[in-house]
């Protein structure tokens, strides 16, 4: 079959058969790098297109339909346009930080990609503290946003960055706790082990209501963490024009824009991995025949299908809900989500210790 697993194994064997192992390893490094960057660009472009189409459906209109069939090249054209535009740096800006900020946001987004398992045996870096790594690195992006807001020397940007800082730091907690509840179930921080533990059913089904609660909290928290509506306080175009990237233009703006979509993909991939078994096909207990049929669907399709499903959910939020106010946003986190997720973690621990899950 042409599943990703077989292709990579073929490449690996071919390289090792023709070159000496060290050289082959370096070539694999290069290939992975190229693949990661390609995936990055492809994801960014296709998710922007998807968002436009989802928005169009919600808003009873057609969406992009001129450039290419169904407008699939619209975002490519837009990116080319942004590439050709002048990247303006305001006079009062701190030039070094201003130029650095979009790259930090982008690099952080790329770093999180490392431990994610895209398909069976396809994982760039199977680190044994994978989940810890994810939550550690994902909170770095706030530095880029704060940097952008401060360096722009614009009051709107500053307010946006300030909001974003308060928001990401707070919602990191709930996201972390809900991730932890799955770690409690699995007993491992490694992404690979977490996926393998869902061999006979996904955690969202196996761990009853606590898993459902932590999934809901996870989705809310990551929506806030990626600065998406209804938590797009950092941008809030009706209040702060464009928030932290008000002063950015050209490709620097595009980097922020693409990083936002990569971040959505990543958080949805994490959600799919933790709660929906990543690339693991839908298995139900001892139904051998059913499980066997499900195994015929390639693992990469399972992974991307689940991720895109979650991405759609997050896009659906954006085009339905109005925005919260900054104090309501922080209230929601500190007064509701955090206590609930702490209690839920306790509940989950009890479930795990007593072995009440399937």
């Amino acid at each position, binding site marked *: 079959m042409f599943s990703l697993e077989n292709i990579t194994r073929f490449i690996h064997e071919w390289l090792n058969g023709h070159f000496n192992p060290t050289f082959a390893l370096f070539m694999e490094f290069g290939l992975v790098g190229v693949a990661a960057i390609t995936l990055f660009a492809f994801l960014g472009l296709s998710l922007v297109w998807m968002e436009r189409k989802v928005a169009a459906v919600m808003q*009873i209109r057609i969406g992009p339909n001129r450039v290419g069939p169904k407008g699939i090249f619209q975002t490519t054209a837009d990116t080319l346009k942004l590439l050709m535009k002048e990247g303006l740096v305001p006079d009062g800006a701190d030039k070094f930080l201003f130029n650095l900020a979009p790259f930090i946001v982008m690099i952080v987004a790329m770093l999180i990609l490392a431990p994610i398992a895209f398909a069976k045996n396809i994982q760039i870096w199977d680190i044994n503290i994978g989940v810890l790594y994810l939550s550690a690195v994902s909170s770095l992006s706030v530095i880029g946003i704060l940097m952008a807001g401060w360096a722009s020397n614009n009051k709107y940007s500053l307010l946006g960055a300030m909001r974003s800082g308060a928001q990401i730091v707070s919602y990191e907690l709930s996201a972390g706790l809900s991730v932890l509840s799955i770690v409690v179930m699995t007993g491992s921080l490694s992404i690979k082990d977490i996926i393998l533990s869902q061999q006979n059913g996904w955690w969202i089904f196996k761990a009853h209501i606590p898993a459902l609660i932590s999934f809901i909290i996870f989705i809310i928290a990551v929506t806030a963490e990626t600065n998406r509506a209804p938590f797009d306080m950092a941008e809030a175009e*009706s*209040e702060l*024009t464009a928030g932290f990237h008000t002063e950015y233009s050209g490709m620097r703006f595009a980097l922020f824009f693409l990083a936002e979509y990569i971040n959505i993909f990543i958080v949805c991939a994490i959600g799919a991995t933790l709660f929906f078994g990543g690339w693991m096909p839908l298995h139900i207990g001892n139904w051998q025949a059913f499980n066997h049929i499900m195994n015929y669907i390639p693992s990469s399709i399972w992974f991307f299908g689940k991720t895109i499903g979650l991405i759609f959910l997050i896009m659906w939020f954006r085009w*339905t809900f*109005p925005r919260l*106010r900054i104090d*309501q946003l922080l209230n929601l986190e500190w007064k509701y989500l955090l206590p609930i997720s702490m209690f839920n973690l306790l509940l989950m621990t009890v479930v795990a210790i007593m072995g009440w899950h399937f």
Partner: protein
Amino acid sequence: MIEEIGRTTEGDLIINIGPQHPATHGVLHLVITLNGETIKKVEPHLGYIHRSIEKMCESLSYRQFIYVTSRMDYLSSHINNHGCALCVEKGLQIEVPLRAQFIRVLMDELTRIASHELWWGAMAMDLGAFTPFFHAFRERETITDIMEKTCGARLTMNYIVPGGVMAELHPDFQKDVKRFIQLYKSKFEEYNELVTGNVIFQNRMKSVGVLSKKDAISYGCTGPVGRASGVFCDIRKLYPYDIYNKIEFEEITETEGDSFARYLVRLKEMQQSIRIIEQLLDNIPEGDFQAKTKAVLKLPKGEFYQRVETARGELGVYIVSEGGTTPYRIKFRSPGFSNLSALEHMVKGLKIGDLVAAMGSLDLVIPDIDR
């Protein structure tokens, strides 16, 4: 002045909202003083779209000046024209045919619905929800199509003239309006599902920008803004013009005076407008659509005042005539100006997000404020 902006002795943050800003729906310029996110002071700077309409009217004849007034509050241009026409008719003592009165009121109410539809979408957009805007425009488009068929224009209609209306109704008018009412009624529940019932929306609107009854009266707030604070200020009820005294409809009032009350008033007003249209639509009497008037209108020497209820509140038209073919002086009392003046009182001590919510609920049209 410009140097001062951005610096205060207390070290507060001063931000210019506008003249180019998504939340102001036009070229309103608010200089707001912030302490962190909390608003300490709001100072509106006007004049960015001042076209001296009142001065222009002084050199236009009584037939011509009405066209300029469509450009004041462009979302209720019919009602502006209506007010001016009524004022001129008052001076000339023209008896308007009953058919024309019916058509005028029908058009007024259609305009009111169209204006509130647009406001509904823009209000949701101010709070960060984009989708309602498109849903609102789906219905609003039907109204503009009806207007286009009869008046030939979609926004600045110039249809109501002294003595009646400009032209006969389009033959399809009744059929189209019925189709619109059917569409509107089938979609109205969607409005509540998508926006009114939303928890986030209610939290953003409730007890935000509270205006007490006393304050509403002292700031001169009219229209939905005044009525949401419990002031009975519907000109259609207080000083009925044309056939409004023969129509059954309710004056919607709320008591809370917050942004959500203003929101509810407008939503319910749309339904009352539908009720008015339904009463009139099948009973339009036969007859002339325009009274016989002289080619050149000359108002007798004196002062004339007429008020009408636009979608935003009370519009007053004040004409001083020296007996010539053009007015000596014209003054418009625009609802938006008084409503805007209450903004600072409403949002002091709240957050920036509340400023946007309160400003959206005032339903400001900037060309109406500046004229």
